């Protein structure tokens, strides 16, 4: 029986890994501007002098702005399975945050059926594995 691998985020502090996973960003307590990945002590809004950025979970749902796929193996540091498996990427608009965030689309998403404006939800997927770990990443999945 295969040993159960430990599931760990591929990067610390960018998303939660519970039942309802969410991206972790920051929101300026002064003006309300969001940042992803998390901001670093200063608000990016030039009209705001805020320095207090609170960590927040970003909206788990958004709408597709655009999408593509990748049919050729990227160079490192992308960790590719052997043989390479193509994957799809979407740019997703979050309404509350008024920003667009990239993410790979859930495995098996059929590009032919995608349209701008479709609703997607954040889920966790496996970015790559080694002998002991399964490295998790956020994916966008079409809301049926």
């Amino acid at each position: 029986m295969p040993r159960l691998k430990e599931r760990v985020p591929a990067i610390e502090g960018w998303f939660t890994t519970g039942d309802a996973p969410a991206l972790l960003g920051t929101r300026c307590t002064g003006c309300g501007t969001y940042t992803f990945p998390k901001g670093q002590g200063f608000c990016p809004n030039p009209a705001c002098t805020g320095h207090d950025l609170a960590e927040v979970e970003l909206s788990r749902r958004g709408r597709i702005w655009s999408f593509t796929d990748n049919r050729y193996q990227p160079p490192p540091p992308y960790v590719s399975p052997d043989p390479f498996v193509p994957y799809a990427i979407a740019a997703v608009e979050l309404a509350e945050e008024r920003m667009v965030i990239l993410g790979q689309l859930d495995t098996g998403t059929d590009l032919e059926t995608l349209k701008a404006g479709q609703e997607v939800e954040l889920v966790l997927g496996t970015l790559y594995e080694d002998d002991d770990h399964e490295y998790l990443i956020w994916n966008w999945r079409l809301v049926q």
Partner: protein
Amino acid sequence: MSTSRDVAILGAGMHPWGKWGRNFVEYGMVAAHQALDDAGLEWGDVQYVSGADTIRNGYPGFIAGATFAQALGWNGARVSSCYAACASGAHAIHTARAQILAGFCDVALVIGADTTPKGFFAPVGGERRDDPDWLRFHLLGATNPTYFALYARRRMEAYGATATDFARVKVKNATHGLANPNARYRKEVTVEEVLASPIVADPLHLLEICATSDGAAALILSSLDFAHKHGHDNPARVSAVSTVTPTFPNSIIEMPNFATDSGAASAPPERTFRDSIAGAALEEAGVGPEDLDVAEVYDLSSALELDWYENIGLCKEGEAERLLNDGDTTIGGRIPVNPSGGLACFGEAIPAQAIAQVCELTWQVRGQATGRQVEGATVGLSINQGLFGHGSSVIVTR
């Protein structure tokens, strides 16, 4: 047209683009000597070297102005080098121009050259978990064509653009570049051939994504006084250089970022980043898009060329496909775009490319673009964008 802030372009030179596999300094020397010959000047006349950088071996000091100054033979010229990703060349032009206009020098060499590895551009090596360029490859597998393809698909979704429209951009540029001795690819292609090439990043095919190339480009810039005193009565001129950054909130996803700015607390800017790149150049030169005779735009992908038509103001948003299909942007049309053949025929040699665009405009306004001349061209615009928010646009007049 002429303003007191013009500088003269006395010389332009290029080493042909290709995959030559030699040291970039060699290419740079060829371009520099050609530009000096074109200007009728000696290397000893150059008082300032403005180098366009790219990152190599993890730092930008290797491919830099001083590298070429040493290769040409140390002459004590002052030097600067600037890194602005794909926009480095235009930023180097801007620096040289500012030195001339400030009166710190009369004659400057602007130079960029590179030798590129095969395949996708990759980030600097090592484990760089604080570098968005490293992270986008590691966490997303987002290559440069990923971003180009997102923009291309957006055109399809927003304006009904088709794969055939995009392929026609490639066909046009391939035809334009046929007679250009500096172009790497000089071969006609058909829409069918473009669409039959493998998809790299849907909807973009292999023949629609610019390759990475070796190449070099150089310019000799001078004050107008110096030009007149040295027999250049009516030189080509740099009439504007735009090096703008975005205005917050930038709502278009940009390489190498994971996300756009948030517009939650701010009204969108009047102009998108790419609109503002062209707008700043046009305003500085005191011309409108309707005054342009020719444009060299950064066609990293076929579809991206269409975005630039709208960003420059050659047509309204969503009308670029019609402009292309009506033949307006073909040589002989109303506003020929990429008569050089563009990146479609060159591939990209990062620190040289924005300088090469200005070499082409120089030859166009002088009437020296043999086999690809836009008849009567006197005002040309180049435009380009480097990752991390580097805009660049240059207006050349005569």
